[in-house]
């Protein structure tokens, strides 16, 4: 509990990393996000919660412009990273996505070796000068993703040969290997057992020291455990956003209260 208070204080002093203003997202004619305003704090964990289909993943993907890959998808409004509009014409998505990494809902390792999975990001961004540096990044990333001990003896084995939970941690390691400033995680623990979940949560908590983390989760407990800020989405609206402790103990909106007490979902 002491810890918790300290965290709250720390986040209050932090600056805003990402702002969204009146963001609408359309898939063709259907509107999936209907006007969202949010300020995401730097070096804190923000949790997106809400019933299935409410648009959490959609909104998360607007932050690193992964929605660009869906032809029917259209985004209006403004999203800024460190005060710069990420939808500006001058922005190159490659550069943006190097700064804003992503872990997907379903583990999606490349059908290559574990080593190459992690090495791919640093390699394309030219982050290392030699093999020794690359090895260091790989070990560090795998350690932070709590999977080093399981794979250190078989780095050349295919990443797709790992179990579902190991694959997801491999994907997390791959995402942090490029040292992004922001890490977006879409239900990273949905395929994990409780032990691996605890390890990933620990990792998320640790990442908060350097990174801004946004996590989508269906687990209230997880949101309460790892996040400092929580945003509750419902039918494309951002219903309530605030300190995690406030949302869970003292929700202001009726819908939030119903959701966290299990009445809608």
């Amino acid at each position: 509990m002491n810890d918790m208070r300290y965290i709250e204080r720390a986040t209050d002093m932090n600056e805003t990393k990402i702002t969204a203003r009146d963001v609408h997202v359309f898939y063709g004619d259907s509107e999936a996000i209907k006007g969202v305003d949010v300020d995401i704090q730097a070096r804190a964990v923000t949790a997106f919660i809400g019933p299935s289909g409410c648009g959490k993943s959609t909104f998360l993907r607007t932050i690193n412009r992964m929605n660009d890959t869906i032809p029917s998808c259209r985004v209006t409004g403004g999203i800024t990273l460190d005060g710069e509009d990420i939808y500006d014409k001058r922005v190159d998505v490659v550069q943006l996505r190097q700064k804003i990494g992503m872990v997907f809902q379903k583990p999606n390792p490349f059908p290559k070796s574990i080593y190459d999975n992690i090495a791919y990001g640093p390699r394309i961004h030219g982050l290392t000068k030699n093999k020794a540096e690359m090895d260091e990044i790989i070990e560090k990333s795998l350690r932070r993703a709590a999977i080093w001990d399981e794979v250190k003896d078989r780095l050349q084995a295919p990443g797709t040969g790992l179990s579902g939970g190991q694959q997801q941690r491999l994907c997390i390691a791959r995402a942090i290997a490029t040292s992004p400033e922001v890490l977006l995680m879409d239900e990273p623990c949905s395929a994990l057992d409780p032990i691996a979940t605890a390890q990933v949560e620990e990792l998320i908590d640790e990442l908060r020291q350097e990174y801004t983390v946004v996590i989508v989760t269906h687990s209230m407990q997880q949101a309460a455990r790892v996040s400092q800020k929580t945003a509750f989405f419902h039918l494309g609206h951002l219903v309530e956003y605030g300190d995690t402790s406030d949302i869970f103990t003292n929700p202001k909106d009726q819908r939030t209260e119903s959701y966290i007490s299990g009445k809608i979902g």
Partner: protein
Amino acid sequence: MTDTSANGQNNAAPKKNSLFVQDARLKRRKSAEKRFQWYGIGAISIGCIFLVVLLTNILMNGSSAFRQTFIDLPITLNAEEIEAAEASMLKTGAYKNIIYAALEEQVASKGVETEMSGKDLGKIMSDSAPGELRGFVLANPDAIGTTVDFSFFASSRVDGYFKGRVERADLVNDKNLDAAHLDIIDQLKDAGIVGLHFNAEFIFGADASDNRPEQAGMGLSILGSFYMMIVVLLLALPIGVGAAIYLEEFAPQSKFTDVIEVNISNLAAVPSIVFGILGLAIFIQTMHFTKSAPLVGGLVLTLMTLPTIIISTRAALKAVPPSIREAALGLGASRMQAVFDHVLPLAMPGILTGTIIGLAQALGETAPLLLIGMVGFLATNTPESFIAGFDTPNSAMPAQIYQWASRADPAFYERAWGGIIILLFFLLAMNIIAVILRRKFERRW
């Protein structure tokens, strides 16, 4: 445990919903399944029967083309005779006389009694013999003055007699051979100097004119097909795969790309003869490329193969899970990097399979070649250099087979079947390569 279950089965009437009793619905489902299995087995059997009939037919008709009747003939290469022959106007005519003399001697030495001599006796020999002899003399001047054991082709009638195609009764009105010749042949056969042997010329040699079927070979048309395949591979693979990658991964979805898509599918269904006439109009009449050259044939076949390669490449790219693209893009890879580093390697087996199927189709295509003149007795020698081969008029395997099948002499008919065996051999080889490549590139994900 066993006791009770045994009792339950034997004594008590089966209870309702028992697992041991199948209800009527399940029985119907099972019999439907059985029926379907029989349909499948029936369909496969019919297919297999057709295949077996086809293959045995081809092998029975065609395998004899690989063996040819040869006549062993030792010839003493007399320097004066050869000098005189080289000095004469009709060189092969002079060499012919050398051969006739040697033949007479050979026949006499084997104790065969005959009134025939010279030109008449020479009818059992192929017309190709003088040319062959002269070629040998020119290539081996050192051999002059010695006696060399030659093995010349017998004439196609004699060959037909050995293969059961020609009977004595058939020769009554034949000006090429008489029954009396066959009597000599029988005796020479017993003497062991005339017989059927494997004939490499058929695989490696050039086509021959209408009156020398025994000399005709597939070699140069295999070479022609080979040159065309090089052209197709070098053009169709990069263009087709490039077009497919662009359409599948980069092109914005619009009416325009839709139209292109529909047209590519339509192109795949266009009859090959249409491509042939297109090639004739564009490459030969407008651009004035060499007629009958493998280069033009290759270009036409490229047009024909492109849609196949594009369609199969697109299918292979579509089959790569989108999560792989997302993973790469999410790491900050550019689209190009995502495609070339991750998507393409996964699509490779499918692309290669499609390409080889397209090539195999092109290899067996005849109709367009007829229109651009790649059929007929075109090439007699291997091209001077590798590059020149692209621009030297030549035939191709299927066109050669078509050509032989349409010639009058039944000796060519056998060669057409033999040519089909060679063509099938190449197709089989390509399919095996396709399987090997697919195995090699296939990776699980």
